[in-house]
């Protein structure tokens, strides 16, 4: 079969794994594709490379296509999300001074309880709290605002959220430019190893099923290259399925550590992929169940309600009209193309394309296109349920 080459951009992070696996483990070839993987120096550059056609698809922060649809930021073309690449996988951490104050106040760094960690942080923080995130339009920023506001911390007024590129986070922490951070792996672990950082919480402690990265494409490409989009979705879906098998993780960590990919030691990548994470300089280790999910529980399905949740957060903070923002955001997560790509495969497709977010306290079965589908717990830490039909 003749292969079609698709240029695909990524940022060097553990959650770019589905792209490497799709290419290196032959899932792309199975669909007659070859992924020409291009590393980008920053999220804004990657977004522009995508918008202006240097790449046709990209590993992208879930809020970026939504922000673009809302006219925020400065993308040159409308972007759509074909599928979710991963859920969660970020860590929230603090620098040396803040960690010492937390420890003095008796915080145990359990890396699990968002209420406890949040109250401890608010008590120990000096105002304004300076927190580094990789990009203004990111789940990092959204989860931080959500978490601290829900606990009564006057966010965004008393939080100074600063943009620090992931690879520079450890340096910014060491230089005292930020007091705390939220970043994707392996950069949180690197901050622990190199900059006396301590990890407070995994992102999953705030929202169990937060959409983290998506596969983004230009809207006109998605609409004109439907067959290619479908093949790409299938290839990456199979890569995600492979990644979800615990037996694959050691090989995946090794693959990611290679010089053409992340070019970092495999043992630091292991922490995110296999666990446990080292959360303090003293070597305290913690396991976080569901820390980074690539596939299970229909994780790859681009729920329109996920885009709407993101739009609601952005619109509320920017003072935009919420109903309109949520309507334009819903169209960005292309559950229609995802369904057409995976119908007839082993993938289970839900009956609806939108759902309540945060409503499942335990494993729940919902109607699928054929039969039923099992959805795992997806709670927010504060128990709030997001109803996409109730916010317009």
């Amino acid at each position, binding site marked *: 079969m003749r292969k079609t080459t698709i240029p695909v951009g990524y940022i060097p992070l553990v959650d770019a794994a589905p792209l490497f696996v799709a290419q290196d483990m032959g899932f792309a070839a199975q669909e007659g594709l070859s992924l020409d993987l291009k590393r980008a*120096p*920053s*999220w*804004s550059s990657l977004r522009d490379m995508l918008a202006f056609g*240097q790449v046709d698809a990209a590993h992208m922060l879930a809020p970026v296509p939504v922000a673009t649809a809302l006219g*925020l930021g400065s993308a040159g073309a409308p972007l759509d999300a074909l599928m979710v690449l991963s859920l969660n996988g970020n860590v929230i951490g603090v620098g040396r001074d803040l960690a010492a104050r937390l420890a003095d106040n008796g915080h145990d760094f359990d890396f699990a309880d968002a209420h406890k960690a949040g109250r401890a942080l608010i008590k120990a923080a000096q105002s304004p709290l300076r927190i580094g995130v*990789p990009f*203004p339009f990111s789940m990092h920023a959204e989860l931080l605002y959500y978490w601290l506001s829900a606990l009564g911390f006057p966010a965004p007024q008393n939080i100074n959220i600063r*943009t620090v*590129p992931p690879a520079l986070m450890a340096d910014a922490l060491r230089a005292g430019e930020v007091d705390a951070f939220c970043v994707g792996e392996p950069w949180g672990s690197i901050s622990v190893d190199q900059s006396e950082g301590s990890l407070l919480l995994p992102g999953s402690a705030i929202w169990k099923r937060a959409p983290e990265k998506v596969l983004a494409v230009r809207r006109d490409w998605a609409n004109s290259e439907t067959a290619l989009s479908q093949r790409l979705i299938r290839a990456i879906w199979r890569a995600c399925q492979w990644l979800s098998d615990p037996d694959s993780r050691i090989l995946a960590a090794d693959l990611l550590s290679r010089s053409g990919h992340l070019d970092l030691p495999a043992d630091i990548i292991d922490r995110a992929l296999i666990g446990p994470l080292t959360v303090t300089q003293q070597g305290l280790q913690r396991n976080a169940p569901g820390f980074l999910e690539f596939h299970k529980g229909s994780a790859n399905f681009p729920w329109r309600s996920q885009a709407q949740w993101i739009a609601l957060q952005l619109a509320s903070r920017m003072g935009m009209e919420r109903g309109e923002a949520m309507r334009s955001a819903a169209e960005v997560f292309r559950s229609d193309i995802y369904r057409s790509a995976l119908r007839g495969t082993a993938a289970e497709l839900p009956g609806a394309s939108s759902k309540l977010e945060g409503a499942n306290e335990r494993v729940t079965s919902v109607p699928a296109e054929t039969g039923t589908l099992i959805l795992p717990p997806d709670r927010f830490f504060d128990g709030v349920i997001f109803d996409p039909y109730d916010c317009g």
Partner: protein
Amino acid sequence: MLRCSFTSARETGVCEIMPSQLSIVVVEADRDRALQIVDSLRTAGEYEIRVISEPTGLARQIQQHNPDMVLIDIENPSRDMLEELTLASGPKERAVAMFVDRSAAGLSAAAIEAGVSAYVVGGMMPERITPVLEAAIARFRLFQRMRTELAETKRALEDRKVIDRAKGMIMKARGVNEEQAYALLRKAAMDQNRRLAEVAQALVSSAGLLL
């Protein structure tokens, strides 16, 4: 989005009250490169140009200067800090946006290709931006070519060095002259369908084990 702001700017007459001289901020840590960029912009017109070399608090620094346009190397990871500027004010009022006016035939794409990103304050007329961007693109293309040349030269030198070492080792081990040693290496490379330098590198690095 920028198109909208052009229209709204024209309607509200924002363009008329803008200073006649464009102010440009160039973000570049390397002093020589910065000077070259400034020089090439000077040849394109009369501009007020400032260089920022320190990435700490980049967004804040730029906000202080309040320029009409920001130029930054795409390879610079600190570029993401500039995205904060798009949030600092209302998105439709004083947008600092990548130059995305589609009518400027491929100019943005050319800029990305050349490795420069340009942030432009919404409401500025395309004809004022074009010469600046063209000058910047030309300069960055040159940088890119130099970068490639440097990498290639370095590789060629390293290749030659490793081939020389491998040759020497073969000469010593097999008691052959230089020409014969080179012929042996070349044959091995052809048989294995690999680059000569790769075969030489493999020999040199595994020979270390035998010493």
